[in-house]
């Protein structure tokens, strides 16, 4: 049983985590943000992340044979690092997304993904 702030702290404790944002998917609003290198506009990052997620969901829905799609997480690897994005549905409100940016050298993608999954299960119960 986690609060949003504690969850964010734990996400930042994932090895190699550079910054993390909890986003309200519907509005693209920043719920909470952490990490030092978020220099500048967290809101812009959040808007970009939710747009990425939306476009992915739309695209996947279009190409999935059943037409329905449920993304649990998304991994984007770039030349400077990994972006890990986990989408979670909530019972009482709209969907949330937890985003974490990982260092290319210091992070372990499988571990990070596993930790994020465990954390989101403690944040919301389904």
């Amino acid at each position, binding site marked *: 049983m986690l*609060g949003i702030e504690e969850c964010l702290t734990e996400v930042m404790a994932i090895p190699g985590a550079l910054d993390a944002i909890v986003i*309200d998917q*519907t509005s693209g*609003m920043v719920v909470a943000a952490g990490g030092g290198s978020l220099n500048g506009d967290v*809101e812009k990052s959040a808007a970009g992340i939710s747009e990425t997620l939306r476009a992915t969901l*739309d695209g996947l829905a279009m190409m999935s044979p059943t037409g329905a799609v449920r993304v649990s997480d998304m991994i984007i690897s770039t030349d400077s690092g990994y972006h890990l994005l986990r989408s979670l549905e909530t*019972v*009482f*409100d709209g969907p949330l997304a937890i985003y974490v940016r990982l260092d290319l050298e210091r992070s372990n993608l499988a571990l990070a993904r596993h930790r994020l999954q465990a954390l989101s299960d403690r944040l*919301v119960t389904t």
Partner: protein
Amino acid sequence: MPTVESILTGLAGDRATGALRLGKAGVLYLTGGRVTYAETPSCPRVEDLLTASGRVSAYAVRQARQAAGEERWGGDRLVDRGVLTRGELEFCVLGAVMDAVFFLLQLAGPRPRFRPGERHWLGPQWYFDATGLVRECKRRRVQLDQAWPSTDLDTLPVVPVARIPAQRVVLTSLQWEVLVGADCTATPADLARKLGRPAYSVLLAVRQLAAAGLLCTPEAAAGDAAQAQAAPAPRGDPPEKSPVPPRRGDSPDRAPVPDRRSGPPEGGPAPPRRGDTPEKSPVLPRRGDPPEGGPALPRRGGGQRTPDREPGGSPAAPFPAGLPAATADPGDVNLLIRLRNALEALA
């Protein structure tokens, strides 16, 4: 008159704790200058969001509310009971507060009254800076306008089109809920309460659906109405068509009078039609039209028999079910002149 925004900024500067009551429009609760809760009758409250899902019983919420006090707030009691996680409660409060603030900040003339020390039973679960709230509300307004730049649908019943102008559509889960919940009478605010979803999310979904051409819009309905005189109207859309004018015309003392005046001398099919519309729901008269021998008749009558009266009807074609059809009627003009004279005599 100070705006809600300026009052909020002032209270934030004073690090005030208490409740800012905006008449019947709603309440904002502050703790140490930061907003911790807000509610307004037009948006679902935290209680509504919690109980709508069925996960938390209304009884559990009531119990937590009654037991709440300074030593242990209601929200903490709910978390203690294990019915939801702290994160879920926080996110729920976040949704409800943003929702209420979004609507409260748009208010024009509330009579604000601040009661220091008054607290909400949930207790502080999430702290919002006044400036952050204002900025987020602006962002949300922009987002709404980007989805569909018209407020027309915001307060009208949500009416999905019977047939979509495409072969396939992709929906979000909330858009699906809105379409399933739409019963052609519920407005976006009603749907939010019914679905237990934040009013803003529902509003956004409604505008997205409208942009995708999946909802009946007033313009489309007006366009149909203009055609309706030539051809029978398609089913489904009449309730969308601005329900306000017909309602105004509803007052039984006003509507029938012009009809009787214009009716007998003119005869023809037009008067019964006008008489029908303000009294019944706009759906019925339209369905009744075609059997009457086709809607072409009234139009022909308009063109040939009484060119002095019917022209008044044709500019008002977008609202055949409402009052405007009678605006150029000599009877109405006389009534207006008498009204004006009476008012001048009073002044």
